[in-house]
């Protein structure tokens, strides 16, 4: 604009704050979280990202289906691993945990972005920023989990005994596992505030969690040390629960245990994240 244009325009002065607050009232944690989730989702809302996000599970399905088919013919491997009913739940868990890990990166990017600095000068509940972060990545995770189910059905004829309900249950359970794990990464991002260190720890944490588990290889075929780890690995339990969902034989205990562990994780990590979340 030119100065002359700016001068020519009649000026409207911003209304005073007292008027604005009485007129607007106050926003609660819910409204704030909804508004901020929309913001955090924005980077995912572009055609390129949407396509890549869809293709990611496809590549993983095809890759693991190929590898596990070969392994399935090796001695000592259980044949069922090669079947899609065993594979799809494992891919779902991987997908959900990877999306959860992404939340930490997202928070680091936000901190670098300076926008969060402004949020910290607003009279809002700062926890809404973290909640929004976790929900945005949960939404992305949900989209990918649906992709896994649809692609598995289309390519491998995934139609497990648990039926549609079983698959929906598996999706929701994976989503819960990924979302609760995202709080580990949000907590670490809030504590470390350093993207490089966070990425290193993320890799160090996710690889053993995912692969030293029963997701792809039955622990019985592992060497003793690894087997002990795999059997104690929470991901193994989550994977068992999702498999039972798909198989249509999930028990109440299994369901309750998974949900309880997930919620416990959030109850530990979220308050620590909230307390250590600052911008400067």
């Amino acid at each position, binding site marked *: 604009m030119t100065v002359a244009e700016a001068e020519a325009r009649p000026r409207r002065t911003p209304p*005073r704050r007292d008027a604005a607050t009485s007129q607007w009232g106050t926003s609660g944690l819910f409204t704030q979280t909804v*508004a901020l989730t929309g913001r955090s989702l924005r980077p995912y809302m572009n055609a390129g990202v949407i396509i890549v996000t869809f293709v990611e599970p496809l590549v993983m399905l095809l890759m693991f289906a190929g590898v596990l088919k070969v392994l399935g013919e090796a001695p000592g491997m259980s044949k069922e691993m090669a079947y899609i009913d065993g594979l799809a739940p494992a891919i779902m868990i991987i997908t959900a945990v990877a999306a959860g890990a992404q939340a930490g990166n997202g928070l680091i990017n936000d901190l670098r972005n300076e926008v969060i600095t402004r949020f910290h000068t607003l*009279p809002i509940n700062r926890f809404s920023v973290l909640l929004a972060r976790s929900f945005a990545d949960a939404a992305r995770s949900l989209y990918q989990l649906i992709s896994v189910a649809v692609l598995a059905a289309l390519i491998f004829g995934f139609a497990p005994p648990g039926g549609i309900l079983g698959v929906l249950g598996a999706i929701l359970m994976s989503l819960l596992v990924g979302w609760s794990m995202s709080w580990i990464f949000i907590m670490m991002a809030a504590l470390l505030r350093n993207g490089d260190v966070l990425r290193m720890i993320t890799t160090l944490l996710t690889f053993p969690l995912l692969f030293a588990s029963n997701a792809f290889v039955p622990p019985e075929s592992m060497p003793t040390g690894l087997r002990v780890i795999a059997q104690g690995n929470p991901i193994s339990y989550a994977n068992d629960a999702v498999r039972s969902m798909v198989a249509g034989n999930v028990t109440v205990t299994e369901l309750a245990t998974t949900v309880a562990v997930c919620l416990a994780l959030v109850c530990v990590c979220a308050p620590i994240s909230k307390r250590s979340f600052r911008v400067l």
Partner: protein
Amino acid sequence: MANPMIEAIDVTKSFGDVTALNGVSVVVPEGSIHGLLGHNGAGKTTLVHILSTLLEPTTGTARIGGLDVSADAQEVRRRIGLTGQFASVDEQLSGRENLTLIARLLGASRRQALARADELLELFDLTEAAKRPASQYSGGMRRRLDIGASLVGSPQVIFLDEPTTGLDPTSRIAVWEVIERLAKDGVSVLLTTQYLEEADRLCERITLLSKGSVVAEGTPAELKAAVGQRMVTVTLAAESEVPAALRALEGAGFRATSAQDSSAALGVPVAASADLAAVVRTLNEAHAEIAELGFSEPTLDDVYLRLTHESAGTPVPA
């Protein structure tokens, strides 16, 4: 003085070994624009961060509208808007979305948020660019959007941290006008800047910071009067007349100096512009022919140079 809206009282801030602020006091009355002037690393941003509840002072007190920034942080946040040194707009969102987001966070309904956003877009001449993502904005547009975003809740106090650094002259003037209008509406403004011209034009009072300490405080005029010198500059027709002219001026009570580079030039510090006539008369009586005559008012530059050099313990260039 009117009600103090922004108060920093003997504020100290240390980051480990670094003392960023060393007992700084600044008081800004309601509806006033106060300038925080200082070179890079003087502590301007740190003080703004303390006053806007982002950092806690190590010692000292900071208050906004009488409310303590540590004890009543959330109440303070209802009264302030911060435009930080680095634009804090969301690049992925459009200009309008950036503003509606803040309005929604502050409790506006969707309709109210849109109305407020459009009002600010209009005010900052961004209506045409309202739907474009902020990543496509020029530096000046981004800055205006940024200032707009800090005004969404119509705060009583605004902090502007180097609001015009890196802007072209046109954008700079546009930002100045916005700031002046805010103060006219009763908003109290604390502005940091490295530009003397900016502080001189906008600010009622200036606090000069150097290495975390206040080295001067006052109106632009007071600062100039306290430190700057009115100076009559004379260039004589011949170099040979300089010694006689200096003697004559000394006799008349002036402490004239000859310049080192151009030896026919003299500098005569004077108290008032009326002394100009006396200088000319003295030189005439000494038969020193004047080739060039000048009179210079002190500038904020003089204030800045002199005081920051004094506090750094280095000699002031003449």
